[in-house]
């Protein structure tokens, strides 16, 4: 350590220059850092979407999901494959190990997708990967406002799809723009089945004819007069009239056209989602998705700029109106932290001036802040950590700690300069002073970094949330370490002056320090003489801590307040889109009764595939409110949610939840890992699965400690099942396919090519008129022409049943499953699982191929606990080792470890007093606290040892060391505490996560400083006396 200092002082100019360069690099990195609101906790996954219009979940699973899943099996790094087969949509989520490069993962999936494409029968959809984004990627939502009222929803949707979408997608950093709402334009060819009959055509003929009469071709070129003329033949249908006049056939020279058998008109595509506004109107809307890894704030800014340009080019009266922007959140979150950071820096500087009693030493110490912070940003850039609430929060927390090392060094230099002989060169004095504290400072800072080690082993959501914080702190502390050992001595040499001889003897430190020392010296002397006071005192403190600790509430991570309220509705799975809209709009109107809510914009179901796979029974209401400042007094977000809750009341058959945009989309991606305990029963037959799942649930309910046992409801969607009677079909010489084609085209509708309007393309949909397909009775009467000319109604050759089918099929590990959820109270989960497992094995008979699997969050937790059980002792051992290395005395090391429980007491009491819960951030606070407390102890004990070595009597040495180190110990404690003060008092976005952390550290600092200053000297003497001098 000393050698570092010597080297730094030797090449002091180079060190300072290098430091400035590093800071410049750090600043450059800071400007380049991607800025996000929160750390991205989305799992590392690639989603594969396949749209197959009109297909029921069973068929989607069979024809689409299964081939895709199978293709994805065996990819490297795949942790899990989960799929959902919904009506008309298959979503396969391929979860990769954390840390794998997203583009590599996508490439792997992409390669296998071609395999999957081959396995999916023709016409059953094309599997496609979702956007290159994460749960945090939805950065801006907008809707189109038409003030003229002249544009239909179909026109507005065309504007969205063909003007806005293209332009926004060109903005760098935007990966996709998804449209929803309104109607997509289609050309409808409504075939009259009776007209077909009249002329003896089938619906397949119509489709074939339209497809055959709608194409452009090229025919190379001809040469004429030394020139080449390109030959092209144009035969694309471009209008309703074109389709109408397509020839079906001719009878006795009389042409029969599509227009004779069908009504051709512009119409609206079937939709699986829509967007409503304010309970009265429907709107067309779009969602802008940010590319993975790009800077949210710059992308949003670019999108906003582009929107202004696009708005100018839109038809008169049509405007893009953003209704949700992540920017506000990013700004708020980063603002909360950066203001805390700035205030912290200010407060720390103030303390330094007061304690150091001079500007020069203050500057030397304070320079540690920009240096360490910029070193941290340099590291963050290098490691790809974005600037967000957590990483910047980590820096804010570290502010006070960053100067600790420098304080100790500068303080010592200051003291030595005052006390040194004028004959000794300044360089020698500084070298001696720095060398003296280099070792303890180095170890102290290293310990602070080390205590964060367990945080790096966190996995999953907590890991992703808190690792950036730990990274930022570790990086900044690393910077602080370099500063304290190398830059600080050099700077001290340049900047600090040797006080005049007259002043130096009398004045050690500022007046404040002397004022503090006056009562401290007798106090510590008493403590050292009457050790029992120290012992009893700390025992009492511990007792208090022990009493308070069990009274603390526990919670997971406190929720981050995003500042936008989303009301999420879940309606009956079988609800029709019209009713879903009606219900949603009724609720929108109720919410608008809350005066602070100015607008409600809702997405029902899904629009263009990519971001959401929600069915139409799900609605997400975004509430646009007046700024919180204008709310009724006293009103905060909780009260607001309560108010909204009341306004909504209890609409029938609707589950209402309150969430926030990012939280919601991240939850969607994490889906399925959050249950505390779940038995997943894997198997083939859905009905059998359900029966067995219910049996398991019954058995499980009997096990002691089981609570809220619940079987997933997998059915609930009414279906009209058309089952072809093969014998009957054979009597008419009909193929099953002949019948299916009529069912598919007539009832469901089939796309027969596209109409091009410039680059805009619209599908041609062939379908029967509504009256022929809107009731079970009319479907039964659907006519099918047999080859011999017989006209057969559908129910002649098929049975049409109304059944209740699966609403969606979820699969995991390539198998269907039904989950049985359960909570456990009053006993340990591991024991519960063991008992339940045997009971289920004994009492439930599972057919071959059916197996159970225990999952749920408890599993992750057990893993985490297991990891901690290894990592924490190792960390403590390492710390002990470091202290031991610093002190060369095992007993002294143990004495320093005593800091841990006493520091904890303060943290625990502070939590209790402030009404906070014991949460993950609080734990992080404890971890930071241990580091600081140990560091302080280390500095004090080292100095005492030094004095003892110099021959001072042990008792006297303890007192003397304590008095001499009062200034640095108090200063480090106060700077750390004050550095956290802004976080403690902050109320902005994200403060809810920082608060418990700051509370713990501040509280703990008080108790641990007391310990360091009063108890340690007392016990030190005891340890030395009892066992002789070391």
């Amino acid at each position, binding site marked *: 350590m000393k050698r570092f200092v010597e080297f730094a002082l030797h090449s002091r100019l180079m060190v300072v220059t290098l430091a400035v360069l590093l800071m410049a690099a750090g600043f450059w990195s800071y400007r380049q850092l991607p800025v996000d609101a929160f750390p991205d906790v989305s799992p590392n996954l690639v989603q594969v979407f396949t749209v197959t219009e009109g297909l029921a979940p069973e068929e989607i699973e069979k024809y689409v999901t299964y081939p895709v899943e199978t293709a994805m099996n065996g990819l490297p790094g795949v942790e899990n494959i989960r799929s959902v087969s919904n009506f008309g949509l298959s979503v396969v989520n391929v979860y990769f190990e954390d840390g794998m490069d997203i583009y590599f993962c996508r490439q792997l999936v992409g390669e296998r997708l071609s395999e999957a494409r081959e396995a999916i029968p023709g016409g059953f959809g094309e599997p496609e990967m979702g956007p290159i984004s994460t749960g945090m990627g939805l950065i801006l939502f907008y809707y189109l406002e038409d003030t003229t009222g002249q544009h239909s929803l179909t026109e507005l949707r065309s504007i969205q799809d063909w003007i806005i979408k293209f332009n926004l997608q060109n903005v760098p950093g935007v990966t996709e723009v998804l449209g929803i709402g309104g109607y997509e334009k289609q050309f409808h060819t409504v075939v009259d089945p*009776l007209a077909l*009959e*009249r002329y003896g055509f089938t619906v397949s003929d119509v489709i074939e004819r339209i497809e055959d009469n709608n194409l452009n071709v090229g025919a190379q070129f001809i040469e004429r007069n030394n020139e080449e003329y390109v030959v092209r033949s144009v035969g694309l249908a471009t209008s309703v009239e074109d389709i109408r006049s397509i020839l079906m056939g001719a009878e006795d020279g009389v042409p029969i056209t599509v227009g004779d058998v069908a009504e051709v008109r512009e119409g609206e595509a079937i939709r699986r989602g829509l967007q409503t506004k304010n309970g009265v109107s429907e709107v067309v809307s779009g969602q802008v998705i940010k590319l993975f890894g790009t800077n949210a704030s710059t992308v949003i800014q670019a999108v906003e700029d582009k929107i202004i340009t696009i708005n100018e080019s839109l038809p008169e009266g049509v405007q893009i109106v953003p209704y949700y922007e992540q920017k506000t959140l990013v700004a708020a979150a980063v603002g909360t932290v950066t203001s805390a950071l700035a205030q912290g820096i200010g407060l720390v500087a103030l303390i330094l001036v007061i304690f150091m009693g001079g500007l020069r030493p203050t500057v030397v110490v304070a320079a540690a802040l920009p240096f360490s912070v910029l070193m941290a940003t340099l590291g963050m850039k290098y490691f790809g950590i974005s600037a967000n609430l957590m990483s910047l929060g980590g820096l804010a927390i570290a502010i006070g700690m960053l100067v600790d090392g420098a304080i100790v060094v500068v303080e010592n230099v200051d003291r030595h300069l005052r006390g040194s002989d004028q004959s000794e060169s300044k360089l020698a004095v500084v070298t001696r002073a720095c060398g003296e504290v280099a070792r303890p400072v180095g170890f102290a800072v290293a310990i602070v970094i080390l205590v964060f080690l367990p945080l790096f082993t966190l996995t999953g959501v907590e890991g992703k949330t808190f690792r950036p914080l730990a990274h930022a702190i570790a990086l900044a502390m690393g910077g602080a370490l370099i500063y304290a050992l190398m830059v600080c001595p050099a700077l001290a040499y340049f900047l600090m002056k040797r006080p005049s001889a007259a002043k130096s003897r009398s004045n050690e430190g500022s007046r404040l320090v002397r004022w503090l020392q006056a009562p401290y010296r007798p106090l510590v002397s008493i403590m050292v003489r009457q050790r029992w006071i120290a012992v009893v005192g700390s025992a009492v403190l511990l007792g208090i801590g022990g009493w308070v600790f069990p009274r603390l*509430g*526990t919670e*997971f991570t406190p929720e981050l307040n995003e500042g936008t309220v989303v009301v999420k509705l*879940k*309606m009956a799975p079988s*609800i029709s889109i019209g*009713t879903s809209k*009606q219900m949603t709009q009724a609720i929108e109107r109720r919410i608008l009764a809350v005066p602070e809510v100015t607008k409600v914009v809702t997405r029902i179901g899904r629009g263009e595939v990519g971001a959401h796979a929600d069915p139409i029974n799900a609605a997400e209401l975004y509430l646009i409110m007046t700024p919180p400042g204008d709310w009724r007094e006293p009103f905060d*977000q*909780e009260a607001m*949610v309560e108010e909204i*809750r009341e306004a909504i009341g*209890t*609409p*029938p*058959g*609707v*589950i209402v*939840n309150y969430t926030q945009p990012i*939280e*919601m989309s991240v*939850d969607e991606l994490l889906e399925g890992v*959050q249950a*505390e305990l779940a038995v997943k029963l894997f198997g083939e037959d859905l009905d059998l699965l359900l029966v067995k799942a219910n049996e398991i649930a019954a058995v499980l309910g009997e096990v002691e400690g089981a609570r*809220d046992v*619940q*079987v997933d*409801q*997998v059915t*609930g969607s009414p279906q009209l099942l058309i089952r072809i009677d093969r014998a009957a079909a054979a009597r008419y010489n009909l193929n099953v396919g002949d019948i299916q084609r009529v069912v598919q085209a007539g009832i469901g509708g089939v796309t027969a090519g596209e109409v091009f309007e410039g680059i805009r393309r619209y599908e041609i949909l062939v379908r029967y008129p509504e009256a022929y397909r809107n009731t079970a009775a009319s479907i039964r009467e659907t006519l099918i022409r047999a080859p011999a000319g*017989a*006209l*057969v109604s559908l129910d*002649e050759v098929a049975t049409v049943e109304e*059944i*209740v089918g699966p*609403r*969606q099929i979820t699969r995991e590990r390539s198998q269907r499953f039904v989950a049985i959820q359960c*909570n456990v*109270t009053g006993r340990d989960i591991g024991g519960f699982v063991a008992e339940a497992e045997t009971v289920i094995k004994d009492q439930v008979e599972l057919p071959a191929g059916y197996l159970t699997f225990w999952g749920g*969050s408890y599993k*992750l*937790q057990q893993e*985490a*606990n297991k990891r901690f*059980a290894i990592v924490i002792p190792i960390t403590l051992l390492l710390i002990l080792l470091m202290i031991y290395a610093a002190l060369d005395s095992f007993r002294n090391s143990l004495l320093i470890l005593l800091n*841990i*429980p006493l520091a*904890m007491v303060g943290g625990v009491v502070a939590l209790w007093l402030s*009404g906070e819960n*014991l949460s*993950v951030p609080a*734990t992080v606070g*404890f971890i930071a606290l*241990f580091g600081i407390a140990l560091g302080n102890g280390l500095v004090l004990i080292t100095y005492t040892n030094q004095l003892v070595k110099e021959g001072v009597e042990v008792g006297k040495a303890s007192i003397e060391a304590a008095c001499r180190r009062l200034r640095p110990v108090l200063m480090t404690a106060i700077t750390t505490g004050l550095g956290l003060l802004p976080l403690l008092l902050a109320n902005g976005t994200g403060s809810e996560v920082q608060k418990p952390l700051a509370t713990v550290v501040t509280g703990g600092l008080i108790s641990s400083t007391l310990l360091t200053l009063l108890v340690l000297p007392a016990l030190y003497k005891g*340890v030395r006396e*009892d066992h002789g001098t070391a």
Partner: protein
Amino acid sequence: MTFPFSFQTLRRVILAFTLCAYVAVLRAEPDDHEHHDDHASHDDHDDDDRHDDHEDDHDDHDNDDGHDDHADHDGHDDHEDGPLQLSTEIVGDFGIEFAVAGPGTISQELRLLGEIQMNSNKAAHVSPRFAGVAKTIARRLGDEVKAGEVLALMETNDTLRPYELTAPIAGTIVEFHLAQGESVDAGDYTYIIADTSTVWADLRVPQRQLPRLKVGLDVYITAGEEFPAHAGKISYIGPVIDEQTRTGLVRAELDNSDGLLRPGLFIVGNVSLGRDTHSIVVPLSAVHPIDNASVVFVEDDHGEGFEPRIVQLGEQDLTQVHITDGLSHGERYVSVGGFFLKAELQKEDFGDGHAH
């Protein structure tokens, strides 16, 4: 001076502290189930409400306790046990309608396709009795003729004597194959005269439906929106089935005084199979399938709410159904909009385990 406690004790104390530290760290780690229990037991955590909401969200995906909590928040306890409520607000917003169970009539219909044919009983073919040449043509295609009216003047080839072709019946000339000076053989069709004041609606009947049809049933004939509907009765049911199409022939004679029903017209015939009056008939919109049973929402005795009642369905037509069991006369039920009650009933089920 002696140390007040031995080093041994100190070591133990430190060990205990350190253990304490482990425990604290372990306990505070991602321990959300602790929280669940906790939060379930103190629901009065006012300042914690915001947080609870979010926990509810998580729960709703996976288990039901969050949902229960949610119900508690609304001051709305376990509604599945009591009758289902419908506030007047809801009734207004969603157009929910009520009706009182009572008798009704179910009419059964059968839709058949076919075409208009000439009434063969009232058509006549005119053929020359001798081979000859047409000298004068008096009546041509489309002319109305009376019985006995001269249609054309012929001359025999053998004797060169003139003779007349006369109309055997009154009617319209619907076919005409004779030109001035044309030589025709005896027995050639020259005129077809039909009386189109009545026509036949020939309907093809799938073999399965044949037993349900009887002579005398009412038939309504339509030929698209442009044509008025014509009423008739089944007058004839063909004795054989077509081997190609496996359909039988059902015929109704229709009045065609307006002349719109031209032979060859493609028609749809709706045969009324009968009208049955039952004591309890409800609109189809009142019946909801729940767990493979049919349910009607019936008001409970006290008029406090509605309960799901499993019913047995009898015959039904396009709009109504006969309830054979489960609903008694005079009971008030939800006739339109029962879906919302069904949804409320199943809310417990769809609230959980639902993935996106």
